[in-house]
């Protein structure tokens, strides 16, 4: 027996769930969300930072990524054994700032809406994000960041040594100060995913958990549906690819072309529950720290290209632990409760892959969100809802289309 839907969303992480929620609000479409639990689900492994500016300037989750890139680039340029240079910030393009900031601005309203209409609280907390300056290099890095984002001057604040001490007494006395991003806050990441999902269910979306998609059905250049291992065939008018780190395979099945989405592993460390130790979210050149609503401090995160491996490796965990103790010395006395790893859906230019693709009807991408899927899930849901309904978009989707990679290839070929 076949099932018929207007829309099938492949992937029940925070992106797929947000798309399901936004599309379900109109009550005009029959929607199914198909998900299978695979080790490494990034929504469950996230820190839940809404660090719109922080992530756009290479802090937060990006710090270690940036350091890795920077050391690799330098090594390639100058040979091996070059110290990591953190003097040049890794700033994402303007279009990403808009995307991230617009998404960030949706959260207060979204938080209220999901509580009031659906009884789901994803624990939105206004925290700010402080980049703690522990040495000369950090200072230079912070100054570069501020220079690069003059248009966001009102969202940035310098804290000198005394001001930092007053607001974050647990931070090491050795810190020289901090650069604070005022609009960067946090949520509980898995509660956010669950809130979208349960709201979508209440709005009539059919959920198919623990179902694996094994193929895509076509009718000419149109998508006709998907094949699954556990629940037979599903027919649909539109397929949305929100398959996270597994999106490349689904794209291949749907469009005949792969998209450059690769799993990027991140390991995370969690403390036991603690009394309030951190006033806001913290990022350093070693790691980030976010004390969650229940008192646990989440410390992340590594950036590793290890395929779909999600094991925890002890040198990396130790690195995060040492980095955290360096900034908040009291942590040496607390217990580490748990570690885990998630797979970010990484794209080569760190921008998500959204919207339609050429020559295939009834297929949309909502993937490649790399390290900012929690933050940008809100705007992604809104965008996909409007794309499906062919309505005006709140921002230009062109830089996020999958075709940008094709153009890149064409250009390379032309220049080659």
């Amino acid at each position, binding site marked *: 027996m076949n099932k018929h839907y207007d829309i099938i969303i492949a992937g029940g992480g925070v992106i797929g769930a947000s798309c399901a929620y936004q599309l379900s609000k109109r009550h005009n479409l029959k929607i199914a969300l198909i998900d299978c639990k695979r080790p490494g689900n990034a929504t469950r492994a996230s820190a839940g930072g809404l660090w719109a500016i922080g992530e756009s300037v290479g802090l937060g989750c990006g710090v270690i990524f940036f350091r890795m890139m920077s050391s690799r680039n330098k090594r390639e340029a100058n040979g091996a054994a070059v110290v990591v240079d953190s003097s040049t910030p890794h700033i994402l393009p303007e279009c990403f700032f808009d995307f991230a900031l617009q998404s960030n601005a949706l959260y207060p309203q979204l938080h209220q809406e999901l509580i009031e209409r659906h009884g789901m609280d994803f624990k939105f907390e206004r925290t700010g994000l402080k980049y703690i300056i522990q040495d000369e290099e950090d200072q230079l890095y912070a100054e570069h960041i501020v220079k690069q984002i003059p248009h966001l001057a009102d969202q940035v604040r310098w804290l000198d040594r005394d001001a930092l001490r007053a607001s974050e007494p647990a931070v090491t006395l050795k810190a020289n100060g901090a650069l604070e991003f005022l609009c960067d806050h946090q949520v509980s990441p898995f509660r956010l995913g669950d809130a979208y999902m349960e709201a979508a269910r209440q709005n009539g979306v059919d959920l198919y*958990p623990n179902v694996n998609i094994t193929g895509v059905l076509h009718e000419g250049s149109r998508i006709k549906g998907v094949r699954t291992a556990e629940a037979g065939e599903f027919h649909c008018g539109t397929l949305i690819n929100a398959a996270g780190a597994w999106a490349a395979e689904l794209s291949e099945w749907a469009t005949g072309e792969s998209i450059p989405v690769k799993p990027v592993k991140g390991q995370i460390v969690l403390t*036991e529950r603690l009394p309030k130790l951190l006033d806001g979210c913290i990022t350093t050149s070693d790691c980030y720290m976010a004390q969650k609503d229940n008192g646990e401090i989440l410390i992340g995160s590594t950036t590793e290209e290890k395929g779909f491996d999600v094991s925890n490796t002890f040198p990396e965990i*130790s690195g995060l632990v040492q980095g955290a103790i360096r900034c908040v010395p009291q942590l040496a*006395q607390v217990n580490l409760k748990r570690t885990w790893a998630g797979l970010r859906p990484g794209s080569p230019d760190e921008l998500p892959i959204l919207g339609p693709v050429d020559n295939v009807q009834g297929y949309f991408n909502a993937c490649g969100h790399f390290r900012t899927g929690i933050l940008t899930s809100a705007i992604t849901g809104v965008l996909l809802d409007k794309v499906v309904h062919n309505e005006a978009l709140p921002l230009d989707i062109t830089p996020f289309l999958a075709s940008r990679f094709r153009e890149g290839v064409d250009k390379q070929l032309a220049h080659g």
Partner: protein
Amino acid sequence: MSLRPVIVGGGSAGMGAAIELAEHGVDCLLFDEASRPGGVVYRGPLRAGVDLGYLGPRYTKALTKLHEDFAACAERIDLRLNHRVVGGDDQRLMVLDADEQLHEIDYSHLLLAAGCHERNVPFPGWTLPGVILLGGLQLQIKSGVVKPLGSTLIAGTGPLLPLVACQLHAAGAKVAGVYEACSFNRIAKESLALMNKPQLFLDGLSMLAYMKLNGIPMHYGWGVVGATGDGELQEVQVAPYTQDWQPDMTRVQREHVRTLAVGYGFIPRTQLSQQLGLAHGFSEDGYLRAECNVWQQSSQPNIHLAGDMAGIRGGEAAMLTGRIAAVSMLQQMGKLDAEQAIERRERFLGKLAAIKRFRSGVERYTARGAAQIQLPQADTVICRCENVTREQIDLALEQGVEDMASLKMRTRVSMGDCQGRMCVGYCSDRLRSATGRKDVGWLRPRFPVDPIPFSAFEQLGTEA
């Protein structure tokens, strides 16, 4: 890389394996988290000068024999007490030493013999001080040599109930009564299977005779339905159970006691076997356990399992499976040829067979009734670490949650310090009952298995 076999757990399985290896001239490295070897069954008192006569002559003899055999092999066994194995992968274990420093221990041959934990069964009042698990209480009179306050009521199912009642009484504690959830008829039907293990059966008879003699009432087909008290336990409510353990709430009786010991059996520890990536399956009782073959070999040829980790069978069987695992390792290391190994294995398997027949009889009559999961009220706490109540689990199930990972995300069950050891049994029962599926997933244990201080990484960091 340690070329010596590494054994995790110094209970009867780990000790049996270490002795077998030593008898064939092979050294081993043995980790145990306690300050004395023996595991929960044979650890003995933690302080000197205690006469364990109250535990019965059979137990005392077995305890003495095991420790003597072990001591005779001491030269070949590198015994690391107060060491906790908190994680690992296919090449190494992460071990926290007595000074709370973390070490990587590479292994070539590994034996996992980390035992089991008790099944928690939530009911209204189960988190009150004074309500404890039966195995924990037994450990207190065996190793801590601490007696419970006032009068103790024992409830649950299985042969551990009358045993602990006798041991408690002999130790000088007052036992108000034993409530066995299964009806007497059901137990009597299994007596043929029990006959295959005469020693245990006779013990069973003499235990019941001891109870009768000392005025400890034994109630069949009755179970606990609630516990109440102001800040600590004062009263236990019991009621007759139907065949599937549905209590008759019109016939509730109240017992005034200071201690309630609840025993509904055990669940193998799988935290390490899961982290090491071994193949697992589900038991009849619904718990997860690592799979092993007749050589006690896991899905990884160089990793063996012994004792309750490979399925709950108790201390004597653990010693035998430890021996078999050691024989398999000896063969892998070229110390025994195939013929010698099989001959030795068969001898242990023969002894194991009688225990297995006894256990399967016990398992049939102690099979938990399906109505047990209805005991908690809406506001009864299920996950003690995260304070998750039954109604939160009900809501998640109504919202379509179908597997353990989703239940965890939706309600926070198992996200606390114990990583779900307390609530996994109930949550798995509820999910299986709601979905009708046998496999609803299990909790994926993370490094570290128990919380460890951040300062434990100091030395590891300098090595990296």
